């Protein structure tokens, strides 16, 4: 008797499971919103350095039967530097993967914090790109953005982005150093000087660039503190007073995206300089190769920097360097 019950109940359970498994799920297609909506993505990566762009893509849309777009504007908490603009083109991607732009509006002159575009085409959906050139005033501060769109129905939507921390560090790209010609590097000035110029700015010279091809050793391109052991400054006559002892540590595989402009997604940020400890480091770096770099701390401990070697030229005894610098 008991066995029968067990049989029936398991049969019923199996049937129930079969039914549940075979039942077709009803998919629900959500009704599209018709009111004005917006969304923003930030397109740039890495630290926000003064002078560089922060790029956003601002999308806005409403149902075509409901109305059209009238204007779009961005308000930055700190006015952007010259060159800040909201693009008047909306982009689509063609079959070759290229962005093709169509002009949909006219930009109004940027007034203080506000950058605005009025739509001139009859459009109900658009994505505009916004380029914010980071101003000097924003250094070390945070900046926020309010993206606002208005439609012909009188609706207004706003999307807040940020806050984004603006880095304290400075950057200078593509300085050419040439042995005996322009070989004195000042981190304080972010500049390269000749021996005659260095003599007038002796207290600002942190490194000497030199190229030597010495038989039996690998010396080649070098960044040496003026106050380093003379064996690392062969045949170099320093201008009077140029004698600082900067700390230098060689680095490899740190191809900062901003400095190198290569495909590597590596960024040096303020934090790297803050955590950098060069107390036991040497005061010279010899055999510097292209795509290598050197961490530097000035003798007065006012600045820390990363010098990236973009390229070297053995025949010309020269190199192209780019610097990121952080004031302590």
């Amino acid at each position, binding site marked *: 008797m008991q066995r029968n019950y067990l049989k029936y109940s398991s049969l019923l359970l199996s049937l129930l499971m079969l039914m549940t498994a075979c039942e077709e799920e009803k998919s629900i297609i959500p009704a599209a919103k018709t009111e004005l909506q917006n969304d923003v993505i930030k397109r740039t990566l890495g630290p926000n350095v003064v002078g560089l762009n922060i790029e956003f893509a601002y999308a806005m849309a409403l149902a075509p039967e409901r109305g059209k777009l009238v204007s779009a504007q961005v308000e930055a908490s700190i006015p952007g530097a010259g060159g800040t603009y909201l693009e008047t083109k909306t982009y689509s991607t063609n079959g070759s993967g290229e962005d093709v732009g169509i002009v949909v509006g006219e930009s109004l002159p940027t007034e203080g914090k506000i950058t605005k575009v009025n739509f001139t085409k009859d459009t109900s959906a658009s994505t505009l790109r916004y380029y914010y050139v980071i101003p000097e005033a924003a250094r070390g501060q945070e900046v926020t953005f309010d993206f606002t769109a208005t439609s012909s129905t009188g609706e207004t939507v706003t999307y807040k982005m940020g806050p984004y921390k603006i880095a304290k560090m400075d950057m200078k790209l593509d300085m050419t150093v040439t042995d005996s010609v322009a070989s004195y590097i000042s981190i304080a000035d972010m500049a390269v000087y000749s021996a005659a110029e260095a003599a007038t700015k002796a207290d600002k010279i942190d490194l000497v660039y030199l190229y030597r091809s*010495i*038989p*039996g*050793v*690998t*010396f080649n391109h*070098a960044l040496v503190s003026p106050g380093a052991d003379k064996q*690392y400054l062969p045949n170099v006559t320093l201008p009077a007073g140029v004698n600082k002892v900067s700390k230098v*540590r*060689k*680095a*490899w*595989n740190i191809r900062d995206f901003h400095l190198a402009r290569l495909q590597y997604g590596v960024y040096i940020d303020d934090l790297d300089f803050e955590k950098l400890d060069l107390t*036991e*480091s*040497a005061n*010279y770096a*010899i*055999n510097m190769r292209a795509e*290598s770099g050197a961490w530097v701390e000035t003798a007065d401990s006012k600045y820390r920097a990363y010098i990236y070697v973009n390229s070297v030229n053995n025949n010309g005894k020269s190199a192209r360097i780019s610097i990121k610098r952080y004031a302590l």
Partner: protein
Amino acid sequence: MVKYSKIAIALLLALVVWVGCTPEFPVDEDGLLITERAECYVSNFELLGPDFQTVRTKNAEIDTVAQTINVEVFYGTDLRNLYPQFSLVTDAKLDPKITGKVDFSDRVNPKTYTVVSGNRKVRKPYTVNITVQKP
């Protein structure tokens, strides 16, 4: 039926007790397995600079009889900030441990590292002698 169950449970219990009493493999103070191996030598030696690139001009000369490692480094190598890397025979370990950069600038008193065999019974000190390439 009950009888069978009792036997099965008794067997299971016996198995658990047996497994529980099996001696564990011995480990040393670092939690590393102590094995039967008595071999004790350095098979390879690497020396990296502050940029984590090699500073050797050629392969290090490892003398397992004299227990020395002779390595020549590039001219201008900063001997105070180097990262040594030892490859040891299977199951051996190094004493002292290398936890970061090492100062090799005192060449009068070269650094010594002891290789400890897998059975932890053989200890062989290796002296690292560094010479700098000269022009």
